[in-house]
């Protein structure tokens, strides 16, 4: 999958020597017998603890509570354990083993929350209630005269500058407030591809608004 921008960090990751604790994890998980089983049990307990904590952290912003949230944590921990054991050979020692492992369970929690969104979506994916657009950016209705031209220009740019796919993604994420991970699942895509679509859409919209004097050109990240 291509990245948003081919320019990458100046300092790429360099594989380090594995620290003793990580080496112990790797050794026992790559082995067989009761030692491996004990390590898997211990790792699962750690992953479950992280998943439960992460679900509690995100819980207040979700439509998931109680046993359902607990179940999500258990599923995330179980699936993370499977992914970790399958990808053990990909651990390069750039971090502690447990940090690498925790990343898997955090990503599993994200994915499962995204899938859960479609069990009871608050709006259809393709609803076109553009009246929500001002509120999405916090424009004050009491001062509509100050921003209505800008928002009209934005609407025009959305219709004329974006590809159908970019418009669909913009509508879903910005207007209908569909979480990016949930949208990726619904469109049989992935987070990176949807982000790149939005990234390109944002850049096009900015350029259109700047060309018509509604906004400055983008200078972020440039020296």
């Amino acid at each position, binding site marked *: *999958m*291509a*990245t*948003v*921008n081919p*320019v*990458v*960090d*100046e*300092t790429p*990751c360099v594989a380090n020597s594995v620290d003793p604790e990580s080496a112990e994890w790797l050794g026992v998980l790559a082995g067989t017998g009761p030692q491996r089983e004990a390590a898997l049990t211990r790792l699962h307990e750690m992953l479950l603890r*992280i998943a439960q*904590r*992460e679900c509690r*952290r*995100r819980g207040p912003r979700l439509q998931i509570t109680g046993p359902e949230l607990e179940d999500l944590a258990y599923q995330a921990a179980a699936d993370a354990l499977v992914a970790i054991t399958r990808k053990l050979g990909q651990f390069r020692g*750039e*971090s*502690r083993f*447990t*940090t*690498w492992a*925790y*990343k898997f369970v*955090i*990503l599993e*929690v*994200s994915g499962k929350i995204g899938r859960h969104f479609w069990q009871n979506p608050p709006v259809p994916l393709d609803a076109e209630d553009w009246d929500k657009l*001002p509120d999405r*950016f*916090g*424009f*004050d209705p009491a001062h509509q005269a100050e*921003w209505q031209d*800008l928002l009209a220009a*934005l609407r025009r740019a959305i219709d004329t500058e974006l590809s159908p796919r970019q418009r669909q993604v913009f509508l879903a994420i*910005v207007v209908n407030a569909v*979480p*990016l*991970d949930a949208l990726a699942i619904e469109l049989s895509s*992935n*987070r*990176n591809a949807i*982000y*790149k679509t939005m*990234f390109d859409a*944002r*850049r096009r*919209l*900015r350029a259109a*608004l700047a060309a018509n004097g509604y*906004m*400055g050109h*983008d200078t*972020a*990240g*440039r020296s």
Partner: protein
Amino acid sequence: MNGYSELDRFLRTDPRDVGCAQATEILHVYAELVAAGEPAGQRHPGIAAHLQACGPCDEDFDGLLAALREETR
């Protein structure tokens, strides 16, 4: 933050932004640097730029960082 500044922030794109795939690939490395008080953003400016713009990846980063910090308590 008023509507204009929020829209301005939303439409700002950073050319250093590496995207979700690359950010996820080394999120564990980046999180350990941050947890250790290292200048993670200087070492990985593309990741820093991405986390600033991508809500889902930043959420994952926050979760991973919280896990590391809880572990060291």
